[in-house]
């Protein structure tokens, strides 16, 4: 860097550039918030779906699975699981039937002992996530 370019010039570009791009980011984020209602299916969010999200969080499902591709990579994608297994009933049956001591030698999912209502809520939440317009991700049903 030549002598003509001084530290105080560098500092001014830092403050100016950062402010500009941060404001641009805020503007884009604001626009996103305005557009989301067209994509995120919020009109369908019921108390059951909200309760389902709570179950999802308090069992830390994201610690093994991905949801819309985010999370852990130990177990299958779940944003499209209702579609993959065919129905909410199938999803609930899967969750319910996990053996307490796991499956010998296999990656095992805990038995969470969810009540029928909790299972319903969770399945409704997963079904809801499946309907969000996420630009056609994942590439295929396997997630």
């Amino acid at each position, binding site marked *: *860097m030549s002598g003509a370019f*001084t*530290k105080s010039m*560098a*500092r001014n570009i*830092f403050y100016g*550039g*950062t402010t500009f*791009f*941060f404001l*641009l*980011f805020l503007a*884009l984020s604001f626009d996103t918030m305005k*557009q*989301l209602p067209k*994509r*995120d299916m919020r009109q369908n*969010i019921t108390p059951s779906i*909200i309760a389902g*999200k*709570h179950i999802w*969080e*308090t*069992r*830390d499902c*994201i*610690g*093994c699975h*991905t*949801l*819309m*591709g*985010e*999370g*852990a*990579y*130990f177990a*299958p994608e779940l944003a499209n699981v209702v579609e993959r297994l065919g129905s909410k009933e199938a999803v609930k049956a899967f969750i319910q039937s996990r053996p*307490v*001591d*796991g*499956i010998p*030698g296999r*990656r*095992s999912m*805990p038995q*969470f002992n969810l009540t029928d209502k909790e299972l319903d809520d969770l399945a409704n939440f997963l079904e*809801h*996530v499946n309907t*969000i*317009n*996420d*630009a056609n*991700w*994942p*590439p*295929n*049903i*396997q*997630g």
Partner: protein
Amino acid sequence: MQYKSQAVAKPYFIAAIGLFIGQILFGLVLGLQYVLGDFLFPAIPFNVARMVHTNLLIVWLLFGFMGAAYYLIPEEAETELFSPKLALALFWIFLVAGALTIVGYLTVPYATLAQLTGNDLLATMGREFLEQPLPTKLGIVVVALAFLFNITMTVLKGRKTSIALVLLLGLWGLAVFFLFSFYNPANIVVDKFFWWWVVHLWVEGVWELILGAMLAFVLIKVTGVDREVIEKWLYVIVTLTLITGIIGTGHHYFWIGTPEYWQWWGSIFSALEPIPFFAMTVFAFNMVNRRRREHPNKAAVLWALGTGVMAFLGAGIWGFLHTLAPVNYYTHGTQITAAHGHMAFYGAYVMVNLTMISYAMPLLRGRAANSNKAQVFEMWSFWLMTVAMVFITLFLTAAGILQVWLQRVSDSPVPFMVGQDQVALFYWMREWAGVAFLIGLIVYVISFFVKGEEKAA
């Protein structure tokens, strides 16, 4: 050590290394669970081991940053720390809160932990990296604010250098963006959108300011190059970081329900994010080549150069690999992501902390540098850990490419678990590389206890 109060950095560094060991042990548990699925099941399920692994990482890096600030700020400001007592009290609060959280994860079912800690009042738990119970999150905020108060007051009463200012900006940013961890709307898309304001704006935003400031500080000390030159570089680097990295957040907004224009904004800006990392590498090598003195601490110089190279590889190259939307469509949420996450975190934030510790610890222990013998141990640990991490990354990348092919690209895509079984060989090799990493870490710890002829400070 020029100021007495810098001594409070020492317990922070020691705690950081202790938690680092815990992080790696749990990494090995996770790696084993990848291939022996029911290992430790149901006592420690994968998700529990994972939150221990990642939360220990974050907490020890924070310990490192705070220790670095307590060491660096008095020397930059040319004045004693505003309150060393406060710094020491915060150390114990943070350590106890952190330890209790980990014990909570390991001994209480997560749903029960959530219930016991007020998650029903304000639900913040159960999101990746933000698994901490509410009291822990509040504790982090309190400790961060008191810490920031302490170092800001120190700078205010002393000399205000660019390094100190950039560091302060980074640390304030860290605290401010963490506040988004308390925002957890019922709408999953909005939830995910702002979750990245913590995670991405940390590692590809404000943390890079901390990284740059720490590196600049050590480079001034070990090379003796003029402060004006180094600080000019620092400003250029952090400018490049923020003008690319802020909008670069868009590379996480491709497939989570957000508008499709993010595929353009995110791809273009994040594709430029490697530039500041490249600048950092050039910066480190340039300054060392132009050095005006031969600092006796060779190990610290090695760590500083290593940080430049590995951060560029892990964040720059491995980030670029999957950051363009058409590529990310296939690689999103696979082992490619894990490969990048590992090398980027190691190359940037682990290594810069180890650089700082390498430089400061001998001085905190009353000598300019460790004995040659101790430095040889430390340099061995550098190579063992770094090469092991390169192999971890390569094996995960191989597994990731196969996973993408089997599960997403081929004409007859296989189910997730079928694909996982087919790439198990690579998970085994990753686990062995992980063992090598642990050996490197053990050598690192031993290097602190190796005696020999030392130069006085």
